[in-house]
Structures are given as C-alpha cells and as structure tokens.
C-alpha cells in the first residue's frame, strides 16, 4: 500500500490503541475497528497535522446523514486514504 496508507494506519493504531496488524485497507473505522466519534476526531487532528490538510469532516458527515454518500466512502480506510491523497494533491496544485 501507499505511504499515505501506512501513515494513516499508524496514526489509527497509535491514537485508538489498536494493534497495527488488525488494521487493513478494507477496515471500516467504526464497524470493524470500533472507533468512536471522539477518537475519530483525534485521528482527524493527527492526519491534518501529518499531511498539512484539513479533512472536511463536517461536509462528509452531512453527506452521509443526508444519504448522498455511504459511510463506507469515508470510513473504509482505502477510501479515506484516497480522499487524503486527493486533498494533498489539491493542496500542491
């Protein structure tokens, strides 16, 4: 997997105290890893800092709540990493 994935998986492992080998690209942060909303904000802060971006959590939450996007779009790790890569690319552009 990409270095972005490795960084994110490391952040989740450290922040939520989840053994690294339990985290996979297909892990759902909430359903599989049991990360609650407080821990997810901790993770978002660590990701924001690590990549110099701002995860648009409020927008994502609104999209999920309004049924415009499935939760998997943002909470399955490989999808989350793709969004992070897009934010990093947009920042560089």
């Amino acid at each position: 997997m990409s270095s972005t994935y490795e960084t994110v998986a490391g952040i989740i492992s450290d922040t939520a105290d989840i053994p690294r080998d339990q985290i996979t690209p297909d892990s759902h942060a909430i359903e599989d890893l049991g990360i609650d909303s407080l821990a997810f904000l901790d993770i978002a802060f660590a990701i924001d800092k690590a990549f110099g971006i701002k995860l648009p959590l409020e927008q994502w939450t609104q999209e999920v709540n309004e049924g415009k996007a499935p939760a998997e779009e943002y909470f399955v790790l490989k999808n989350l990493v793709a969004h992070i890569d897009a934010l990093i690319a947009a920042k560089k552009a």
Partner: protein
Amino acid sequence: MRLEYFEMIDRVTELDRETKRIEVRSTVPMESPVFEGHFPGHPLVPGVLLTETMAQASGYLVLGLMDFTHMPFLMAVDKARFRTFVGPGTVLTVSAQLEHEGSGYAVTKAKIAVEGKAICDAELRFRIMPFPPGMDDLMRAQGRRIGLLETTDA
C-alpha cells in the same frame, strides 16, 4: 473568579485575531467553599479548576474568532502540567493560542502564569457545534460581561 459557579474568567484583556491568541485575567477569590475541602487549613485551587480556566479562555478565543456562530465544547485535555500551587487572592494571567482549526473541531494551547511565572499549561481540543437553542444569546451576555465583545468589536 466564582469557583462554585464555574465562572473562571474575570476579564478579557486582549483578543488578537491576527495571531489567534487571547489573554484574560482572573483573580482567585479569598474565600470559597471549594477551599473548605481542598484542603482543610491549606487552601489551593484544584488542578481541575485550573484546567477549566484554561478551557474557558480557549473557548472564548474560539467564540470570538468565530463571532459567536458556533459553540466550542471541551472534548480532550492533553499534556496538562501543574507546576506551582495557586492559593486564594492570586491574580492569574491566562492565555490561549489557536493551534489548529479543523473541520468541526479546534485545538488550542493554553497556559496560566502569575507575574510571568508559569503555573500550568495544557493542549486542549474542542468540538465545534451549532449552539443549542437559546444558548447563543446567553453566551453573548457572558461575552459582554467579561469584555470579550468589546474586544471583538474593537
């Protein structure tokens, strides 16, 4: 300060929008029921109330920077250090710096000093949410009471 009412901030002395920093002043009361138990015959401000004081300074910073559009709620305290005892009558200078403005959350670093000497510091995180119904006017009233709105309007 009115410890038993959790009104920890007496006066906002500075709100700098450019540097995203606030400084406030608070004087520990000479008497409070809190001191009857903490500790008998040796009154000290509890560390949790110093933490609350740093959280309130940070909260007013976020409120001021966001023009009272959203309410910050404390959600995490990290790296808290209490370096010196604080007793009745002490004048505290509390400062807070916005470290990161995330989506739906904010992070500050706050500290308390007495005559330039460090008392305590911590990194604080807040969830930023819409005001519960009716709360915004009450928080604005609090802001006026401590001079935050004057500072914001300046």
